[in-house]
């Protein structure tokens, strides 16, 4: 276990609802070493955002961490009080959201909104704060920063707003940036620019990034390692190249097979069935009902094991192949 960066150890999240307790995240472990971009991939509702929110201490009403720990540079932040969480949110961990359109306060000028983060976490005097804000605005590639400083969010385009969000997140030079589907609401050209920006920020600030996405193209572009989530569990974890060249879990294989490709003309495959609801989690392997390889063995919990150095898979069949 590394000392630097974020370590999520066996994290479980319980959500109290009227229909009983649900577990959107169960026993998730992952590591984000300092300066790395780690992808968290999975379809909607598989627990990606819940994992991110528990790291931020922003679980929705009724949600709580029911097991495991989150370490930031060796400190257990999963046991932090809300007040302690507030002091590290924005300064050591920060987050950018999916919808840049709605994530900015519409009645406050963007410069002021960025400045507010500085006000909260530093004691830089007022005159210098504006300089800092302008500097970070230039850093994230906002043209005419002086003019944009006084702009309201509705006067900016989607890409610029996302840049403002990134400026807010990066102004205190946090160790970890959580990006919750940062490019989903943007068109592809802007997506490419934003990803490029995140990569250059990672290099200049040595910030680690947890990139949540359902877009494997985004993963292929900038991630170092990837975690694939299915129904609250990590089913496969490996470096990026291994994921695309040698996917081992049937779910990952299914995901990759359902990407359209120009160099093949056969019909696009898809993963059959749908994700079962969280209150009806199947016994044993959670993917068994939809898995082409499923056997009787899959009704028991599959082991999470290293099949190749640095390549972890949660599947009975993958272990067999290796043995």
């Amino acid at each position, binding site marked *: 276990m590394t000392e630097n960066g974020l370590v999520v150890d066996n994290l479980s999240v319980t959500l109290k609802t009227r229909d009983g307790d649900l577990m959107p995240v169960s026993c998730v472990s992952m590591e984000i070493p300092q300066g790395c971009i780690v992808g968290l991939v999975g379809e909607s509702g598989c627990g990606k955002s819940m994992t991110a929110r528990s790291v*931020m201490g*922003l679980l929705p*009403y009724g949600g709580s961490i029911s097991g495991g720990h989150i370490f930031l540079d060796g400190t257990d932040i999963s046991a932090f009080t809300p007040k302690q*969480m*507030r*002091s*590290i*949110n*924005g*300064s050591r961990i*920060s*987050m950018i*959201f999916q*919808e840049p359109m*709605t*994530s*900015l*306060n*519409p*009645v*406050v000028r963007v410069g002021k909104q960025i400045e*507010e*983060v500085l006000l*909260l*976490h530093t004691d830089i005097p007022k005159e210098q704060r504006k300089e800092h804000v302008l500097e970070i605005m230039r850093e994230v590639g906002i043209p005419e920063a002086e003019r944009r400083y006084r702009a*309201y969010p509705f*006067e900016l385009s989607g890409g610029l707003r996302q840049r403002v*969000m990134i400026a*807010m*997140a990066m102004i205190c030079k946090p160790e970890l940036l959580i990006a919750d589907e940062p490019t989903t609401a943007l068109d592809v050209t802007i997506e490419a620019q934003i990803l490029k920006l995140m990569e250059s920020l990672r290099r200049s600030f040595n910030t680690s990034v947890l990139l949540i996405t359902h877009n494997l193209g985004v993963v292929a572009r900038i991630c170092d390692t990837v975690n694939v989530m299915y129904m609250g569990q990590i089913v496969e974890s490996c470096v990026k190249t291994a994921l695309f060249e040698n996917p081992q879990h049937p779910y990952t294989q299914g995901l990759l097979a359902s990407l359209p490709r120009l160099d093949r003309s056969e019909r696009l495959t898809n993963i059959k069935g749908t994700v079962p609801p969280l209150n009806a989690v199947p016994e044993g392997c959670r993917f068994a009902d939809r898995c082409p390889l499923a056997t009787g063995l899959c009704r028991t919990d599959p082991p999470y094991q290293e099949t190749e150095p640095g390549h972890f898979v949660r599947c009975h069949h993958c272990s067999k192949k290796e043995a």
Partner: protein
Amino acid sequence: MNRKKRKEIKSIPKGHFADICRNFARNKTAMAALAVLILILITALFADVIVDYRTKVLAQDPRMRLLSPSAEHWFGTDNFGRDLFGRIIHGARYSLFFGIACTAISLAVGCVLGATAAYYGGIIDNIIMRITDTVMCIPFLLLALTIVAVGGPGLRTLTIAITVASVPGFTRMVRSVVLSVVSKDFIEAAKSCGTKDAAIIFGHILPNAIGPVIVNCMMNIAGIIMSAAGLSYLGMGIQPPTPEWGSMLSEAMKYFRTYPHVAVCAGAAIMITALCFNLVGDGLADAIDPKRRR
């Protein structure tokens, strides 16, 4: 050409507030109502300068009773020979005082209660809202009448009565507005930056909720002016000889068949003021709501 165009664009003020002002200015009815309101406000403020309170408004003169409107007495005189114009503009002070003061106090209380209920939710929300619901079960006038009956008629009791009776409405309104803002993404984004609760409520939630709240206030002022006049009409508010529109109207009803101008003046004053507040409120609602904008 190009330079001229750029200059034009520059001269238009930017921002939310300026936008709202521009939209409001385009609404002719609302602007007319606002002009009348300002006129009423000015006459009420300078009532002492325009008409002397002791000699014209309170002093009775039986020889001059129930005169029709003339150059000397613009609105005529009442059954005690007092100048009606003077009584109306002095009466405006009471009506405006009730309308604005009661709204301000109940708004302040309602904002605190409603915002707390909406932001924290859960049991706090339940306690505040169930008490509000209980108070709201009692009809507005009945509640106000009860409080006046306990405290005795007069300016202070009337203010308290009307304020207490209108707090639940404000609480409910503020809560619903705040609830719709709390669920927005930028509140979560603010939380993710480590912003404190109080800063979120005052810095992010209330500025976004202020529009509908102001509109509601304008409407509420109209309602309060009418209920204050109503209570005084019933003899539960301001007592004669103090010039209050409601009590003036109630007295004038005795002569309504023979000398209708007394009742008409008092009634028209109430109606016009309330109508103007309503129209301004409507205009603001149109100006603020982006969906109704061009």
